[in-house]
Protein backbone atom coordinates (compact mmCIF):
# COMPACT_ATOMS: atom_id res chain seq x y z
CA UNK A 1 0.00 0.00 0.00
CA UNK A 2 1.18 3.56 -0.60
CA UNK A 3 1.96 6.05 2.16
CA UNK A 4 -1.29 8.02 1.63
CA UNK A 5 -3.29 4.84 2.11
CA UNK A 6 -1.35 4.03 5.25
CA UNK A 7 -2.03 7.51 6.60
CA UNK A 8 -5.73 7.32 5.75
CA UNK A 9 -6.02 3.87 7.31
CA UNK A 10 -4.56 5.23 10.53
CA UNK A 11 -7.35 7.81 10.64
CA UNK A 12 -10.33 5.72 9.56
CA UNK A 13 -9.51 2.41 11.16
CA UNK A 14 -6.75 3.07 13.73
CA UNK A 15 -4.38 1.01 11.53
CA UNK A 16 -0.93 0.57 13.05
CA UNK A 17 0.83 -1.69 10.58
CA UNK A 18 -1.49 -4.63 10.88
CA UNK A 19 -5.11 -5.60 11.50
CA UNK A 20 -5.97 -8.00 14.27
CA UNK A 21 -8.77 -10.15 12.92
CA UNK A 22 -10.43 -10.61 9.56
CA UNK A 23 -10.03 -7.77 7.09
CA UNK A 24 -10.34 -6.65 3.52
CA UNK A 25 -8.40 -3.61 2.40
CA UNK A 26 -9.60 -1.90 -0.76
CA UNK A 27 -7.11 0.50 -2.35
CA UNK A 28 -7.89 2.43 -5.53
CA UNK A 29 -10.60 0.02 -6.57
CA UNK A 30 -8.75 -3.24 -6.03
CA UNK A 31 -8.12 -5.59 -3.14
CA UNK A 32 -4.81 -4.72 -1.47
CA UNK A 33 -5.08 -7.32 1.27
CA UNK A 34 -7.52 -9.78 2.72
CA UNK A 35 -7.71 -12.24 5.55
CA UNK A 36 -10.58 -14.38 6.72
CA UNK A 37 -10.77 -15.96 10.16
CA UNK A 38 -12.27 -19.19 11.44
CA UNK A 39 -15.59 -17.39 12.01
CA UNK A 40 -15.51 -14.65 9.41
CA UNK A 41 -15.26 -15.56 5.74
CA UNK A 42 -14.60 -12.82 3.20
CA UNK A 43 -14.95 -13.54 -0.51
CA UNK A 44 -15.46 -11.68 -3.82
CA UNK A 45 -18.93 -11.07 -5.19
CA UNK A 46 -19.37 -12.76 -8.51
CA UNK A 47 -21.63 -10.27 -10.24
CA UNK A 48 -20.15 -6.92 -9.19
CA UNK A 49 -17.16 -5.23 -7.61
CA UNK A 50 -17.28 -5.94 -3.93
CA UNK A 51 -17.17 -8.62 -1.28
CA UNK A 52 -19.37 -10.67 0.96
CA UNK A 53 -18.58 -10.97 4.64
CA UNK A 54 -20.14 -13.98 6.32
CA UNK A 55 -20.04 -14.11 10.11
CA UNK A 56 -20.83 -17.55 11.50
CA UNK A 57 -23.65 -17.90 14.05
CA UNK A 58 -22.49 -17.52 17.61
CA UNK A 59 -19.29 -15.63 16.77
CA UNK A 60 -18.36 -13.46 19.72
CA UNK A 61 -16.03 -10.51 20.26
CA UNK A 62 -14.50 -10.41 16.79
CA UNK A 63 -13.60 -7.26 14.91
CA UNK A 64 -13.76 -7.14 11.12
CA UNK A 65 -11.99 -4.36 9.22
CA UNK A 66 -13.36 -3.30 5.82
CA UNK A 67 -11.59 -0.01 4.99
CA UNK A 68 -11.45 1.53 1.53
CA UNK A 69 -9.02 4.19 0.34
CA UNK A 70 -8.77 6.16 -2.88
CA UNK A 71 -5.48 7.97 -3.41
CA UNK A 72 -5.36 8.12 -7.20
CA UNK A 73 -6.57 11.56 -8.29
CA UNK A 74 -9.47 11.38 -10.72
CA UNK A 75 -10.45 7.81 -9.79
CA UNK A 76 -14.12 7.08 -9.10
CA UNK A 77 -14.30 3.90 -7.10
CA UNK A 78 -17.55 2.07 -6.57
CA UNK A 79 -18.13 -1.00 -4.42
CA UNK A 80 -20.87 -3.12 -2.92
CA UNK A 81 -20.25 -5.10 0.25
CA UNK A 82 -22.73 -7.58 1.69
CA UNK A 83 -22.63 -8.54 5.36
CA UNK A 84 -24.32 -11.71 6.58
CA UNK A 85 -24.33 -11.84 10.36
CA UNK A 86 -25.34 -15.21 11.80
CA UNK A 87 -27.67 -15.80 14.73
CA UNK A 88 -26.38 -14.86 18.19
CA UNK A 89 -23.19 -13.35 16.77
CA UNK A 90 -21.71 -10.25 18.41
CA UNK A 91 -19.16 -8.48 16.23
CA UNK A 92 -17.61 -5.09 15.58
CA UNK A 93 -17.23 -3.93 12.00
CA UNK A 94 -14.93 -1.03 11.21
CA UNK A 95 -15.61 0.26 7.73
CA UNK A 96 -13.88 3.56 7.22
CA UNK A 97 -13.23 5.33 3.98
CA UNK A 98 -10.49 7.79 3.09
CA UNK A 99 -9.91 9.82 -0.06
CA UNK A 100 -6.67 11.64 -0.83
CA UNK A 101 -6.48 13.92 -3.86
CA UNK A 102 -4.30 16.78 -4.99
CA UNK A 103 -5.59 17.22 -8.54
CA UNK A 104 -8.64 19.08 -9.79
CA UNK A 105 -10.52 16.07 -11.11
CA UNK A 106 -13.19 14.58 -8.90
CA UNK A 107 -11.84 11.72 -6.84
CA UNK A 108 -14.60 9.64 -5.34
CA UNK A 109 -15.56 6.58 -3.41
CA UNK A 110 -19.11 5.26 -3.56
CA UNK A 111 -19.88 2.39 -1.25
CA UNK A 112 -23.00 0.35 -0.66
CA UNK A 113 -23.08 -1.76 2.48
CA UNK A 114 -25.97 -4.16 2.97
CA UNK A 115 -26.38 -5.92 6.31
CA UNK A 116 -28.50 -9.00 6.89
CA UNK A 117 -28.52 -9.52 10.62
CA UNK A 118 -30.04 -12.71 11.95
CA UNK A 119 -31.93 -13.30 15.19
CA UNK A 120 -30.32 -12.19 18.46
CA UNK A 121 -27.18 -10.95 16.71
CA UNK A 122 -25.50 -7.67 17.60
CA UNK A 123 -23.35 -5.52 15.34
CA UNK A 124 -21.32 -2.52 16.35
CA UNK A 125 -20.71 -0.67 13.10
CA UNK A 126 -18.04 2.05 13.09
CA UNK A 127 -17.66 4.20 10.01
CA UNK A 128 -15.21 7.10 9.67
CA UNK A 129 -14.91 9.15 6.51
CA UNK A 130 -12.04 11.51 5.84
CA UNK A 131 -10.46 13.42 2.99
CA UNK A 132 -6.87 14.66 2.75
CA UNK A 133 -4.90 16.58 0.13
CA UNK A 134 -5.26 20.01 -1.47
CA UNK A 135 -7.97 19.21 -3.99
CA UNK A 136 -11.48 20.47 -3.35
CA UNK A 137 -13.06 17.65 -5.31
CA UNK A 138 -12.99 14.74 -2.87
CA UNK A 139 -16.28 12.91 -2.72
CA UNK A 140 -17.63 10.07 -0.59
CA UNK A 141 -21.09 8.64 -1.20
CA UNK A 142 -22.45 5.87 0.95
CA UNK A 143 -25.55 3.77 1.04
CA UNK A 144 -25.87 1.67 4.19
CA UNK A 145 -28.82 -0.68 4.59
CA UNK A 146 -29.62 -2.80 7.62
CA UNK A 147 -32.13 -5.60 7.84
CA UNK A 148 -32.55 -6.64 11.47
CA UNK A 149 -34.26 -9.91 12.35
CA UNK A 150 -36.02 -10.60 15.63
CA UNK A 151 -34.15 -9.32 18.67
CA UNK A 152 -31.15 -8.21 16.59
CA UNK A 153 -29.42 -4.95 17.35
CA UNK A 154 -27.10 -2.47 15.67
CA UNK A 155 -25.09 0.34 17.20
CA UNK A 156 -23.76 2.60 14.50
CA UNK A 157 -21.07 5.24 15.10
CA UNK A 158 -20.60 7.33 12.01
CA UNK A 159 -18.20 10.21 11.61
CA UNK A 160 -17.15 12.57 8.84
CA UNK A 161 -15.06 15.26 10.44
CA UNK A 162 -12.93 16.86 7.78
CA UNK A 163 -11.68 17.04 4.25
CA UNK A 164 -14.59 15.54 2.31
CA UNK A 165 -15.86 18.17 -0.12
CA UNK A 166 -19.02 16.44 -1.28
CA UNK A 167 -20.88 13.67 0.46
CA UNK A 168 -24.18 11.93 0.03
CA UNK A 169 -25.01 9.56 2.86
CA UNK A 170 -28.11 7.40 2.79
CA UNK A 171 -28.78 5.09 5.71
CA UNK A 172 -31.79 2.83 6.09
CA UNK A 173 -32.93 0.09 8.43
CA UNK A 174 -35.84 -2.31 8.68
CA UNK A 175 -36.54 -3.79 12.09
CA UNK A 176 -38.37 -6.95 13.14
CA UNK A 177 -39.78 -7.70 16.62
CA UNK A 178 -37.67 -6.42 19.53
CA UNK A 179 -34.88 -5.27 17.20
CA UNK A 180 -32.89 -2.19 18.25
CA UNK A 181 -31.16 0.30 15.99
CA UNK A 182 -29.02 3.06 17.53
CA UNK A 183 -27.13 5.65 15.48
CA UNK A 184 -24.75 8.37 16.55
CA UNK A 185 -23.60 10.49 13.63
CA UNK A 186 -21.04 13.33 13.81
CA UNK A 187 -20.36 15.61 10.88
CA UNK A 188 -18.25 18.66 10.17
CA UNK A 189 -18.10 20.59 6.94
CA UNK A 190 -15.99 23.62 6.09
CA UNK A 191 -15.06 25.80 3.13
CA UNK A 192 -17.50 25.15 0.31
CA UNK A 193 -18.23 21.53 1.32
CA UNK A 194 -21.64 20.11 0.59
CA UNK A 195 -23.17 17.23 2.51
CA UNK A 196 -26.45 15.35 2.44
CA UNK A 197 -27.38 12.81 5.08
CA UNK A 198 -30.65 10.92 5.00
CA UNK A 199 -32.07 8.26 7.30
CA UNK A 200 -35.03 6.00 6.80
CA UNK A 201 -36.08 3.56 9.49
CA UNK A 202 -39.01 1.19 9.16
CA UNK A 203 -40.15 -0.16 12.50
CA UNK A 204 -42.13 -3.24 11.51
CA UNK A 205 -41.61 -5.31 14.64
CA UNK A 206 -43.44 -5.24 17.94
CA UNK A 207 -41.39 -3.38 20.55
CA UNK A 208 -38.72 -2.49 18.03
CA UNK A 209 -36.74 0.63 18.80
CA UNK A 210 -34.70 3.19 16.86
CA UNK A 211 -32.71 6.15 18.13
CA UNK A 212 -30.88 8.40 15.68
CA UNK A 213 -28.72 11.24 16.98
CA UNK A 214 -27.03 13.40 14.37
CA UNK A 215 -24.74 16.23 15.46
CA UNK A 216 -23.11 18.47 12.94
CA UNK A 217 -21.12 21.65 12.52
CA UNK A 218 -21.30 23.71 9.32
CA UNK A 219 -18.41 26.15 8.99
CA UNK A 220 -17.16 28.46 6.27
CA UNK A 221 -19.67 28.56 3.41
CA UNK A 222 -20.46 24.86 3.66
CA UNK A 223 -23.98 23.52 3.42
CA UNK A 224 -25.66 20.47 4.89
CA UNK A 225 -29.01 18.85 4.41
CA UNK A 226 -30.41 16.42 6.97
CA UNK A 227 -33.50 14.34 6.51
CA UNK A 228 -34.95 11.51 8.51
CA UNK A 229 -38.04 9.40 8.16
CA UNK A 230 -39.16 7.00 10.84
CA UNK A 231 -42.12 4.80 10.09
CA UNK A 232 -43.86 3.03 12.95
CA UNK A 233 -45.87 0.09 11.68
CA UNK A 234 -46.40 -1.54 15.07
CA UNK A 235 -46.01 -0.95 18.79
CA UNK A 236 -42.57 0.64 18.72
CA UNK A 237 -40.49 3.62 19.78
CA UNK A 238 -38.56 5.87 17.44
CA UNK A 239 -36.54 8.96 18.19
CA UNK A 240 -34.45 11.15 15.96
CA UNK A 241 -32.45 14.21 16.93
CA UNK A 242 -30.67 16.65 14.66
CA UNK A 243 -28.46 19.18 16.40
CA UNK A 244 -26.42 21.52 14.27
CA UNK A 245 -24.05 24.36 15.04
CA UNK A 246 -23.59 27.06 12.44
CA UNK A 247 -20.28 28.91 12.32
CA UNK A 248 -19.33 31.74 9.97
CA UNK A 249 -21.63 31.36 6.93
CA UNK A 250 -22.51 27.67 7.16
CA UNK A 251 -26.05 26.52 6.47
CA UNK A 252 -28.12 23.51 7.49
CA UNK A 253 -31.53 22.34 6.33
CA UNK A 254 -33.28 19.75 8.49
CA UNK A 255 -36.33 17.87 7.29
CA UNK A 256 -37.61 15.35 9.79
CA UNK A 257 -40.55 13.12 9.04
CA UNK A 258 -42.42 10.81 11.38
CA UNK A 259 -45.00 8.41 10.11
CA UNK A 260 -47.04 6.49 12.70
CA UNK A 261 -49.20 3.76 11.25
CA UNK A 262 -50.08 2.08 14.50
CA UNK A 263 -51.74 3.68 17.51
CA UNK A 264 -49.03 2.26 19.78
CA UNK A 265 -46.16 3.72 17.80
CA UNK A 266 -44.37 6.40 19.85
CA UNK A 267 -42.25 8.59 17.59
CA UNK A 268 -40.34 11.73 18.50
CA UNK A 269 -38.17 14.13 16.59
CA UNK A 270 -36.02 16.94 17.99
CA UNK A 271 -34.07 19.46 15.95
CA UNK A 272 -31.98 22.43 16.99
CA UNK A 273 -29.93 24.54 14.60
CA UNK A 274 -28.08 27.69 15.53
CA UNK A 275 -24.79 29.31 16.28
CA UNK A 276 -22.94 28.65 19.51
CA UNK A 277 -24.75 30.38 22.35
CA UNK A 278 -22.93 33.49 23.55
CA UNK A 279 -23.27 32.41 27.18
CA UNK A 280 -21.38 29.18 26.40
CA UNK A 281 -18.46 31.15 25.00
CA UNK A 282 -18.59 33.55 27.96
CA UNK A 283 -18.59 30.70 30.47
CA UNK A 284 -15.45 29.16 29.01
CA UNK A 285 -13.83 32.60 28.81
CA UNK A 286 -14.28 32.87 32.58
CA UNK A 287 -11.87 29.91 32.71
CA UNK A 288 -9.28 31.96 30.83
CA UNK A 289 -9.96 30.71 27.29
CA UNK A 290 -10.13 33.17 24.40
CA UNK A 291 -13.33 33.32 22.40
CA UNK A 292 -11.73 31.28 19.61
CA UNK A 293 -10.40 28.65 22.04
CA UNK A 294 -13.82 28.45 23.69
CA UNK A 295 -15.50 27.88 20.32
CA UNK A 296 -13.06 25.09 19.49
CA UNK A 297 -13.68 23.38 22.85
CA UNK A 298 -17.43 23.61 22.40
CA UNK A 299 -17.28 22.12 18.89
CA UNK A 300 -14.83 19.43 20.00
CA UNK A 301 -17.15 18.38 22.81
CA UNK A 302 -20.25 18.61 20.64
CA UNK A 303 -18.79 16.26 18.05
CA UNK A 304 -17.11 13.87 20.46
Amino acid at each position, binding site marked *: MNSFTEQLLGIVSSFKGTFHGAYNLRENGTCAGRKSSANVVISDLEDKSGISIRVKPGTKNETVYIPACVTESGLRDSVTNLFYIGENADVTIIAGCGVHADGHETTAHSGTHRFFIEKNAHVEYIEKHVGTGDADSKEINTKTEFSLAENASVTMESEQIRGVNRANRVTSATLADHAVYLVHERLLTDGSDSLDTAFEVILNGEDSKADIVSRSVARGHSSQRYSSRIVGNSRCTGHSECDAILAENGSVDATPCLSAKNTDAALIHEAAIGKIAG*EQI*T*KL*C*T*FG*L*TGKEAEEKIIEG*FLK
Partner: protein
Amino acid sequence: MLTLKDICFQAPDGKFILKDVNLQIEDGQLLVVTGPNGGGKSTLAKIIAGIYQPSSGQIILDGQDITALDVTGKAKKGISSGFQRPVCFKGITVRVLLNIAAGRELTANELKSLLGMVGLCMCDYADRELNASLSGGELKRIEIASVLARRTPFNIFDEPEAGIDLWSFQKLIDIFREMKSDSSASQMIISHQKSILEIADRIAVISAGTVVEYGVPDKVLPALFGEDSGCVCPVGKGCGK
Protein backbone atom coordinates in the same frame (compact mmCIF):
# COMPACT_ATOMS: atom_id res chain seq x y z
CA MET B 1 -7.23 42.61 47.41
CA LEU B 2 -9.91 43.84 45.04
CA THR B 3 -10.97 47.46 45.03
CA LEU B 4 -13.94 48.92 43.19
CA LYS B 5 -13.67 52.68 42.72
CA ASP B 6 -16.67 54.74 41.70
CA ILE B 7 -18.10 52.01 39.49
CA CYS B 8 -20.97 53.20 37.31
CA PHE B 9 -22.91 51.26 34.71
CA GLN B 10 -25.47 52.87 32.48
CA ALA B 11 -28.07 51.14 30.34
CA PRO B 12 -28.32 52.22 26.68
CA ASP B 13 -31.21 54.51 27.64
CA GLY B 14 -28.91 56.36 30.04
CA LYS B 15 -30.44 54.92 33.21
CA PHE B 16 -27.89 54.11 35.92
CA ILE B 17 -27.90 50.41 36.85
CA LEU B 18 -24.94 51.04 39.17
CA LYS B 19 -23.87 54.43 40.44
CA ASP B 20 -20.63 55.21 42.26
CA VAL B 21 -20.13 51.81 43.82
CA ASN B 22 -17.08 51.75 46.08
CA LEU B 23 -16.09 48.51 47.77
CA GLN B 24 -12.89 46.90 48.97
CA ILE B 25 -12.44 43.18 49.52
CA GLU B 26 -9.31 42.28 51.47
CA ASP B 27 -7.31 39.09 50.92
CA GLY B 28 -9.05 36.15 52.54
CA GLN B 29 -12.20 38.16 53.12
CA LEU B 30 -15.72 37.03 52.32
CA LEU B 31 -18.00 39.79 51.14
CA VAL B 32 -21.67 38.92 50.81
CA VAL B 33 -23.67 41.26 48.61
CA THR B 34 -27.39 41.34 49.18
CA GLY B 35 -30.32 43.57 48.38
CA PRO B 36 -33.58 43.62 46.47
CA ASN B 37 -33.98 42.01 43.05
CA GLY B 38 -33.06 44.34 40.23
CA GLY B 39 -30.81 46.39 42.49
CA GLY B 40 -27.66 45.82 40.41
CA LYS B 41 -25.95 42.95 42.29
CA SER B 42 -25.58 40.60 39.31
CA THR B 43 -24.52 43.51 37.09
CA LEU B 44 -21.75 44.26 39.55
CA ALA B 45 -20.64 40.60 39.47
CA LYS B 46 -20.56 40.70 35.67
CA ILE B 47 -18.52 43.91 35.68
CA ILE B 48 -15.92 42.40 38.01
CA ALA B 49 -15.76 39.25 35.84
CA GLY B 50 -15.32 41.34 32.68
CA ILE B 51 -18.60 40.29 31.07
CA TYR B 52 -19.74 43.92 31.13
CA GLN B 53 -17.48 46.96 30.97
CA PRO B 54 -18.30 49.70 33.48
CA SER B 55 -19.33 53.07 32.08
CA SER B 56 -16.83 54.64 34.47
CA GLY B 57 -14.80 53.75 37.52
CA GLN B 58 -11.90 51.42 38.21
CA ILE B 59 -11.35 47.80 39.21
CA ILE B 60 -8.03 47.30 40.98
CA LEU B 61 -6.76 43.79 41.74
CA ASP B 62 -3.69 43.62 43.94
CA GLY B 63 -2.69 47.13 42.94
CA GLN B 64 -3.17 46.58 39.21
CA ASP B 65 -5.87 48.34 37.25
CA ILE B 66 -7.76 45.56 35.42
CA THR B 67 -10.80 47.62 34.44
CA ALA B 68 -10.23 47.42 30.69
CA LEU B 69 -9.56 43.68 30.57
CA ASP B 70 -12.19 41.44 29.01
CA VAL B 71 -13.51 38.20 30.54
CA THR B 72 -10.50 36.18 29.40
CA GLY B 73 -8.06 38.81 30.64
CA LYS B 74 -9.72 39.06 34.04
CA ALA B 75 -9.89 35.25 34.32
CA LYS B 76 -6.17 35.06 33.59
CA LYS B 77 -5.54 37.63 36.32
CA GLY B 78 -7.24 35.30 38.79
CA ILE B 79 -10.94 36.11 38.82
CA SER B 80 -13.45 33.27 38.69
CA SER B 81 -17.16 33.55 38.34
CA GLY B 82 -19.98 31.14 39.18
CA PHE B 83 -23.06 32.07 37.20
CA GLN B 84 -26.52 32.43 38.67
CA ARG B 85 -27.86 30.31 35.82
CA PRO B 86 -25.36 27.59 34.86
CA VAL B 87 -24.76 27.00 31.17
CA CYS B 88 -25.41 23.65 29.46
CA PHE B 89 -23.00 22.21 26.89
CA LYS B 90 -24.10 19.34 24.66
CA GLY B 91 -21.34 16.77 24.45
CA ILE B 92 -19.12 18.27 27.15
CA THR B 93 -18.96 16.09 30.25
CA VAL B 94 -18.55 17.22 33.84
CA ARG B 95 -15.00 15.84 33.78
CA VAL B 96 -14.09 17.79 30.64
CA LEU B 97 -15.59 21.03 31.98
CA LEU B 98 -13.65 20.75 35.22
CA ASN B 99 -10.46 19.96 33.29
CA ILE B 100 -10.98 23.09 31.17
CA ALA B 101 -11.64 25.12 34.33
CA ALA B 102 -8.51 23.78 36.01
CA GLY B 103 -6.45 24.32 32.86
CA ARG B 104 -5.14 20.77 33.02
CA GLU B 105 -6.29 17.17 33.33
CA LEU B 106 -7.38 16.56 36.89
CA THR B 107 -6.46 13.31 38.56
CA ALA B 108 -9.22 10.95 39.64
CA ASN B 109 -8.59 11.91 43.25
CA GLU B 110 -8.78 15.63 42.49
CA LEU B 111 -12.00 15.12 40.57
CA LYS B 112 -13.46 13.02 43.36
CA SER B 113 -12.52 15.64 45.92
CA LEU B 114 -13.92 18.55 43.88
CA LEU B 115 -17.23 16.85 43.19
CA GLY B 116 -17.37 15.57 46.75
CA MET B 117 -17.09 19.15 48.02
CA VAL B 118 -20.32 20.02 46.23
CA GLY B 119 -22.03 16.81 47.29
CA LEU B 120 -21.73 14.87 44.03
CA CYS B 121 -20.31 11.39 43.56
CA MET B 122 -17.59 11.20 40.91
CA CYS B 123 -18.72 7.78 39.70
CA ASP B 124 -22.22 9.07 39.02
CA TYR B 125 -21.36 12.44 37.54
CA ALA B 126 -17.87 12.66 35.99
CA ASP B 127 -18.97 11.36 32.61
CA ARG B 128 -22.42 12.90 32.53
CA GLU B 129 -23.00 15.44 29.78
CA LEU B 130 -23.81 18.98 30.88
CA ASN B 131 -27.23 18.93 29.29
CA ALA B 132 -30.85 19.19 30.31
CA SER B 133 -30.78 15.69 31.82
CA LEU B 134 -29.13 17.27 34.88
CA SER B 135 -31.38 19.08 37.33
CA GLY B 136 -30.96 22.78 38.11
CA GLY B 137 -29.47 21.88 41.48
CA GLU B 138 -26.97 19.46 39.96
CA LEU B 139 -25.89 22.03 37.37
CA LYS B 140 -25.48 24.60 40.13
CA ARG B 141 -23.21 22.31 42.14
CA ILE B 142 -21.09 21.62 39.07
CA GLU B 143 -20.90 25.37 38.45
CA ILE B 144 -19.54 25.85 41.96
CA ALA B 145 -17.09 22.98 41.47
CA SER B 146 -15.80 24.64 38.28
CA VAL B 147 -14.95 27.78 40.26
CA LEU B 148 -13.28 25.72 43.00
CA ALA B 149 -11.25 23.87 40.33
CA ARG B 150 -9.56 27.10 39.30
CA ARG B 151 -8.10 27.92 42.75
CA THR B 152 -8.07 31.61 41.91
CA PRO B 153 -7.42 34.52 44.31
CA PHE B 154 -10.84 36.12 43.72
CA ASN B 155 -14.05 34.17 43.32
CA ILE B 156 -17.54 35.44 42.62
CA PHE B 157 -20.65 33.34 43.25
CA ASP B 158 -23.97 34.69 42.09
CA GLU B 159 -26.72 33.19 44.24
CA PRO B 160 -24.98 29.83 44.71
CA GLU B 161 -27.77 28.56 46.92
CA ALA B 162 -30.43 28.83 44.21
CA GLY B 163 -31.66 25.38 43.26
CA ILE B 164 -29.72 23.60 45.99
CA ASP B 165 -31.78 21.44 48.29
CA LEU B 166 -31.88 21.95 52.02
CA TRP B 167 -29.85 18.81 52.71
CA SER B 168 -26.97 20.14 50.61
CA PHE B 169 -27.29 23.72 51.78
CA GLN B 170 -25.32 23.19 55.00
CA LYS B 171 -22.62 21.51 52.93
CA LEU B 172 -22.49 24.62 50.76
CA ILE B 173 -22.04 26.82 53.82
CA ASP B 174 -19.19 24.53 54.92
CA ILE B 175 -17.52 24.97 51.51
CA PHE B 176 -17.59 28.74 51.87
CA ARG B 177 -16.29 28.51 55.44
CA GLU B 178 -13.45 26.33 54.16
CA MET B 179 -12.70 28.78 51.38
CA LYS B 180 -12.59 31.54 53.97
CA SER B 181 -9.92 29.66 55.86
CA ASP B 182 -7.68 30.01 52.80
CA SER B 183 -6.37 33.46 53.64
CA SER B 184 -4.97 34.04 50.17
CA ALA B 185 -8.31 33.92 48.33
CA SER B 186 -11.18 36.39 48.56
CA GLN B 187 -14.80 35.64 47.81
CA MET B 188 -17.77 37.68 46.80
CA ILE B 189 -21.11 35.94 47.14
CA ILE B 190 -24.41 37.38 46.06
CA SER B 191 -27.06 35.92 48.30
CA HIS B 192 -30.33 36.47 50.07
CA GLN B 193 -29.77 33.63 52.53
CA LYS B 194 -29.33 34.55 56.17
CA SER B 195 -27.05 31.54 56.75
CA ILE B 196 -24.65 32.82 54.12
CA LEU B 197 -24.88 36.41 55.32
CA GLU B 198 -23.97 35.18 58.82
CA ILE B 199 -20.61 33.78 57.70
CA ALA B 200 -19.61 36.97 55.88
CA ASP B 201 -16.72 39.13 56.97
CA ARG B 202 -18.49 42.11 55.43
CA ILE B 203 -21.96 42.62 54.03
CA ALA B 204 -22.86 45.14 51.36
CA VAL B 205 -26.49 45.95 50.65
CA ILE B 206 -27.00 47.18 47.13
CA SER B 207 -30.25 48.80 46.22
CA ALA B 208 -31.17 50.86 43.19
CA GLY B 209 -27.58 50.66 41.99
CA THR B 210 -25.85 52.02 45.08
CA VAL B 211 -24.36 50.60 48.26
CA VAL B 212 -26.92 51.58 50.88
CA GLU B 213 -25.39 49.62 53.76
CA TYR B 214 -21.94 48.18 54.40
CA GLY B 215 -20.29 46.65 57.42
CA VAL B 216 -19.72 43.58 59.56
CA PRO B 217 -22.66 41.18 59.99
CA ASP B 218 -23.25 42.27 63.59
CA LYS B 219 -23.93 45.74 62.32
CA VAL B 220 -25.83 45.01 59.11
CA LEU B 221 -27.85 41.90 59.94
CA PRO B 222 -30.06 43.40 62.66
CA ALA B 223 -31.21 46.04 60.21
CA LEU B 224 -31.95 43.38 57.60
CA PHE B 225 -33.58 40.74 59.77
CA GLY B 226 -34.30 42.44 63.08
CA GLU B 227 -37.74 43.30 64.36
CA ASP B 228 -37.43 46.81 63.07
CA SER B 229 -36.62 45.74 59.56
CA GLY B 230 -40.28 44.97 58.89
CA CYS B 231 -41.12 45.59 55.28
CA VAL B 232 -39.34 48.86 54.79
CA CYS B 233 -39.21 49.78 51.15
CA PRO B 234 -35.74 48.64 50.11
CA VAL B 235 -35.37 51.32 47.49
CA GLY B 236 -36.24 54.05 49.91
CA LYS B 237 -39.32 55.32 48.15
CA GLY B 238 -40.94 56.04 51.46
CA CYS B 239 -43.56 53.32 51.14
CA GLY B 240 -43.22 52.82 54.90
CA LYS B 241 -44.09 49.67 56.80
